[in-house]
């Protein structure tokens, strides 16, 4: 091959490598789906609790990553399920939270997250029964947690029986097997507080903490607490 040909080959390969690296970086930092902010402050009267309903599904079923596990939240104004994990909440208010858990469970990597922490009364309810800790090595295990580290809030979401016909894509309806977990917590003063699931549920990723665990609008998000 002539010197000119070699040079062209080397430059061409270099440009391809640069393009691939750039594509990889952009793909890595790009959020899975365009996310908005679910506003729970609209029409909220001071001193009144806020109802917040969410669900967890084993596979979102749509978008760029249909097989990824995800949270969804019910839009308080339309009642529709939305894949948003940034929630605007009023400060110093009680949040009555209901999570419909449609995913199956397993033993926790760290049983510390089997403990209900930071809720009002230090408990949550599972299908109407109060609990303060759940041994993930028994029963149907823990599917996910709802944890806000900065608030010391963490609630294990007990999984459904994996032998049942688990809902395969979102949004799941209550006709599918699910557990209803309820708890209340009080928001602090204004600020931004991240929340996440502490079950490494990113299937196919190292230690289970990549993919949906590392992408906004899946298994983690922000509580934007405003005055």
């Amino acid at each position, binding site marked *: 091959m002539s010197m000119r040909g070699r040079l062209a080959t080397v430059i061409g390969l270099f440009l391809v490598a640069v393009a691939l690296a750039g594509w990889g970086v952009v793909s890595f930092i790009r959020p899975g789906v365009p996310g908005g902010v679910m506003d729970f402050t609209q029409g909220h009267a001071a001193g009144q609790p806020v109802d917040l309903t969410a669900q967890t599904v084993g596979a979102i079923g749509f978008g760029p990553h249909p097989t990824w596990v995800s949270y969804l939240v019910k839009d308080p104004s339309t009642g529709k399920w939305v894949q948003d994990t940034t929630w605007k909440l009023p400060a110093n208010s009680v949040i009555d939270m209901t999570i419909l858990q449609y995913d199956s469970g397993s033993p926790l990597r760290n049983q510390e997250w089997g403990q209900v922490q930071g809720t009002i009364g230090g408990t949550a309810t599972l299908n109407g029964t109060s609990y303060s800790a759940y041994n993930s090595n028994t029963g149907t295990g823990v599917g996910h947690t709802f944890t806000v580290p900065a608030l010391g809030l963490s609630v294990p979401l007990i999984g459904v029986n994996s032998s049942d016909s688990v809902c395969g894509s979102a949004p799941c309806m209550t006709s599918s097997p699910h557990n209803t977990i309820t708890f209340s917590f009080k928001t602090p003063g204004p600020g931004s507080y991240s929340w996440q699931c502490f079950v490494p549920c990113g299937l196919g990723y190292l*230690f289970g903490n990549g993919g949906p665990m590392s*992408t906004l609008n899946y298994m983690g998000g922000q509580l934007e607490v405003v005055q």
Partner: protein
Amino acid sequence: MANENSTNETHHLRNITVIWLILSVIVDLLFWFLVGPHVPPGTMTSSAKGNQFDFTFLCLMALPVLIGVWVYMGYAIRIWSAKRPGAEEPMTGPNARTNKTAQVSWIVITSVAVLFLAGFGTVELVISQGSGGGEGPNPIWTPPGATKAEAAALTPKASWSANSNQVLTVQVIAQQWKFTYRYPQFGGFETTQLVLPANTNIAFNVTSLDVIHSFWAYQLDVKADANPQQNDVAFTQTKQLGSFTVRCSELCGIWHGTMFNSGKVVSEAAFMSWAQSTEQANAQNTADLPPFAWTYVPDANGAAGGYYTDGNVTPYSTVEIYGSKQSAP
């Protein structure tokens, strides 16, 4: 002519030395008394206090060097300026390059300084039991009673009491993206809060359940890498009551920036009260925790923890699976 030059050089050297000496003493004294007490990381622990002294001492050594450069520069500009009437011609050329006194002095002074600093650093590291840094699973420098306390921590009968000069063992467990803490001398309960008694030697045993993290308690001057399946031990002695901040100092994923919490150093009595009440409150969950161990293998049995990038499922392990007590299939 040669004698005249030599006399002038001696004269200049004496002037510069006197100015440098006076300024160095003044600046060092000002630094010692005005800045020294505020040098980070403070005096909350023995290692913090030790590091504060080290930083201050190094500054006290560096300042005269800085002042020496500035004094020489100022003197040269003032005295040897070509614009100055009657300015002397600077001595250059072979005379400057072959001045043995200058060369030997330079080599001796810099060699002594470097060797002294190496010795100083080593001594400071030894006498402060590692200066708050992670020493790995088999620390060389340990406070009195640490080996005994660490061995006892692995037994169910481990205990700790106030005013007993016992070393308190605290296990730091890192996971994406939160630190949790186990207290083996109080039944092995685990909590998200880090509370320590004052005037106590603390043995931090740092490990990780997933990727590499780093436990950095800034005001305590404790910093130790948290590696999966490794126990990294760091020591310090608490001195003052107050709050401190814990951060992960190893980029560990998307929520790395949120991986922090605050801790407290409280009186020994207050610590006992907190530890006993937390042990009681967490009893139900503590019963579900695995036996206390220095390291834990990340679970390979569910919750996607067992699925790795190669698509294979890591086989079950019968031991040390954190949060899992069931037998292997």
